[in-house]
């Protein structure tokens, strides 16, 4: 409170001090068999930044979706600025000044920014007027908060960072004074994240109230005033940020002690496993994405690729894993060249000893409508152990799946459950279990912990290190700079399709910052 006042530029009214912006009492919600929220109480002070943390599937998104009127609570009361309300639907929530930036963005991909902004808030039946109005308002917001995006850009062409700005602008355009952000930084680079936080603080200082869901305790500690912890659909507790620490929070979340920093010994690199030579990749629409990239990864080392999202990492991964034919250059695994002919050499590449954990599990790594055991053999179904000849041995496959479920502690422990019904964290584990637990020579991993809670992060990091210590080669791509630095033995920084430099993980934030901006620190 005290520091609030110090920090606040404008003095909040007395009323605001006592009347909380949001007050949830005994809120419960269940989806069929799944009880997502059990009797939740939550109080959010006016013009404060309130953090919410919790494991995957803890019920954070659901609780916020209820507050935003997207879902209806089965029980419980909602008070907004002290007034008891029955939030009928999202438009009602918006009228009450509650805006939400969803975890999975709610944008129409082939619309312009402007169209997305006005959608649902058009005003009169013809668009012309409202569009003009929106333009001005956007200009104003851009000026006030440095939230600038080209109003006529098509969403598809924007980076995730920009997409998120659009989401925030949507909320502000609708005059939200309570702003909910669900895992906003999951997809952002450190720089983007910092920009976002500056904006959030500015909003708070102007009297808005912000609820921030995140899996990253660093962020919680950095900008929240208060933090609430959820576990398995219940509210474990709410504390003032200044009175707590990452380890305490982690323990509250998971219910046990967790190591937050990765412990690893020095690497003993062996001979080259993966060699990339003058690789250039051009995407379907002819845009060059990877430009003459060369590097190699040795047995027993983890090579990290740092960089802002959208600088060619994805295309690099796709080329190496045989999913996409590169334009020029060659890739060798254990000295054997990958022959790109026709569509889908990914299976051959796998047989050469490469395992691939894709960046986006929902889009690529999993068929969410399949049962868990089916996903646990995706890409390896031709293996002898899954049945000989053309036939598939369901029995063998399920036994194999159970083995992996136990080894990677995937929950619920049911190979017959539809994959969509696993939480994101567990979905990620299914992919890791499939790719890591086999005799591979090199593992390439994209965004291994995106959207995954710390309990799972700790586990995943351990597994990657273990693999390295068994003398496997690992290529790690992540937009989480911390992650890259703490896991890798060498770090390559990628910018605009090129590898600008190689840095030691111990290099300073500043050096990385420069490199990721495309400037080789060596030359500075």
């Amino acid at each position, binding site marked *: 409170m005290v520091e609030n006042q110090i920090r606040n530029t404008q003095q909040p009214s007395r009323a605001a001090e006592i009347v909380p912006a949001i007050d949830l009492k005994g809120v419960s919600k*269940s989806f*069929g*068999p799944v009880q997502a929220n059990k009797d939740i109480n939550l109080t959010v002070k006016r013009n404060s930044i309130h953090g919410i943390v919790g494991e995957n599937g803890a019920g954070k998104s659901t609780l916020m979706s209820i507050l935003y009127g997207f879902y209806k609570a*089965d029980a419980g009361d909602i008070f907004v600025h002290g007034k008891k309300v029955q939030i009928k639907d999202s438009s009602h929530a918006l009228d009450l000044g509650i805006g939400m930036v969803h975890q999975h963005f709610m944008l129409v991909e082939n619309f312009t920014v402007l169209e997305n902004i006005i959608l649902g808030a058009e005003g009169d039946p013809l668009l012309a007027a409202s569009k003009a109005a929106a333009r001005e308002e956007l200009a104003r917001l851009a000026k006030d908060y440095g939230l600038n995006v080209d109003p006529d850009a098509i969403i598809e062409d924007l980076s995730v960072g920009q997409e998120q700005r659009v989401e925030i602008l949507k909320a502000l355009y609708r005059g939200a004074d309570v702003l909910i952000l669900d895992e906003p930084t999951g997809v952002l680079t450190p720089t983007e994240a910092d920009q976002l936080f500056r904006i959030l603080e500015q909003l708070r200082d102007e009297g808005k109230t912000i609820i921030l869901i995140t899996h990253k305790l660093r962020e919680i500690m950095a900008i929240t005033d208060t933090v609430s912890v959820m576990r398995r659909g219940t509210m474990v507790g709410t504390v003032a940020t200044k009175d707590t620490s990452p380890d305490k929070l982690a323990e509250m979340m998971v219910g046990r002690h967790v190591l937050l920093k990765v412990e690893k010994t020095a690497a003993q690199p062996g001979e080259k496993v993966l060699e990339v030579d003058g690789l250039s990749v051009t995407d379907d629409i002819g845009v060059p994405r990877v430009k003459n990239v060369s590097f190699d990864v040795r047995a027993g080392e983890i090579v990290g690729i740092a960089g802002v999202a959208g600088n060619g990492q994805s295309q690099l991964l796709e080329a190496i*894993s*045989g*999913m996409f034919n590169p334009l020029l250059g060659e890739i060798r695994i254990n000295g054997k060249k990958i022959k790109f002919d*026709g*569509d*889908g*050499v*990914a*299976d*051959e*590449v*796998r047989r050469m000893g490469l395992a*691939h954990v*894709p960046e986006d599990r929902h*889009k*690529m*790594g*999993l*068929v*969410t*409508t*399949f049962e868990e055991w*089916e996903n646990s053999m*995706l*890409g390896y*179904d*031709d293996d002898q152990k*899954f*049945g000989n000849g*053309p*036939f*598939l041995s*369901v029995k063998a496959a399920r036994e194999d799946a159970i083995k992996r479920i136990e080894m990677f502690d995937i929950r619920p422990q*049911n190979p*017959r*459950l*539809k994959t969509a*019904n696993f939480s994101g964290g567990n979905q990620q584990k299914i992919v890791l279990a499939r790719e890591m637990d086999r005799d591979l020579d090199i593992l390439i991993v994209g965004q291994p912990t995106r959207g995954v809670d710390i309990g799972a992060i700790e586990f995943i990091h351990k597994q990657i290190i273990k693999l390295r210590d068994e003398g496997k080669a690992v290529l790690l791509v992540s937009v989480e700079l911390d992650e890259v630095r703490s896991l890798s033995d060498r770090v390559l920084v990628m910018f605009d399709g090129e590898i600008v430099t190689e840095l030691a993980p111990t290099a300073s934030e500043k050096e990385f910052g420069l490199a990721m901006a495309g400037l080789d620190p060596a030359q500075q």
Partner: protein
Amino acid sequence: MSARQPLPSWALNVLMPAMNVLLALIVGGLAVAMIGENPIQAMQVLAYGAFGSGYGLGFTLHYATSLTFTGLAVAVAFHSGLFNIGGEGQAYVAGLGAIMMALWLDHTHWVFVLVGATVGAMTLGALWAAIPGYLQAKRGSHIVITTIMFNFIASALMSYMLAQVITNPGSNAETRTIAETGRIPLLSEYFEFFKHSPVNIMLFFGVVALIGVYILLWRTKLGFKIRTLGQNPEAARYAGISAVSIIVIAMAISGALAGMMAVNEAVSVQKRLVVGYVQGFGFIGIAVAFMGRAHPVGIVLAAILFGALYQGGSELAFVMPAVPSELVVVIQALVILFSGAMDEMFKPVLERVFGAFRSKPQADKAAEIEEA
């Protein structure tokens, strides 16, 4: 907690479909009443005509066999992510392959005719479906357009073949009849029970096809690849599955299945090929496939249901001539509507009913059953 409870599987998979079909029959009955006929009697006749005698059953099964083939065809394509509206044309063109083999071999022995016609039918059917498949995979030509177009093209092609090429002077746009020696036996030749009904050896082929498709889709690696592609093309790419070859293969299988109808109808029963012999069975196959949830068990049930409606319908035409024969089509439509498209209509109601009767723990068990 609301009073709703998740339904046990028997309620979901037996009770609800039954209620849907019943509703369809009731509405159909209203139509009958509308024109001043006795609906109860009509429904009795319908049911008796379809199942009441070995003879009626024979017809029902014969129609069901054809529908099983066209239904499975749609289902296989569907699992690879493609909507094959072309069953009608594929079955039609397949008739050409079937009959030409049959007429070529009919002086030998019916076994050769059976094998030859089957091969011929499956080959042409597969071809007629694989082309749209290839165009989809390679050129991105939308399969729905191409299969629709191929239906029309098939009609023109067959009109040409039957009127100008393999025609037989004196008779009308149809091939000559298969010689006695080469006629595929009807079951009635072995079972008096089926006397005078067209059900024939292809019935067993239908059963084989059902099991075959099940094994293909859920017990082979090809099937796994087909389903992966159908459910998530990106994941298929990630897994190194070649979309082009899988699509072409899936469509070929689909067409081959549709083609089997030719052997059941044209070769075995009509013993010759006549213009437009498919008579819409290809289109009903779409309904059969979707109502059967693209699963062999569902498909066989749907096929029998529709077969029964056809056969019961013709019985109705004898017994109650005042009822226009189109009533059957109307009832078919209602069945498709209620048990196909509106299949969850009664779910909320039932959930409340069950909720009222059952205590929490049981409900949870049911929930688990449902989830697994």
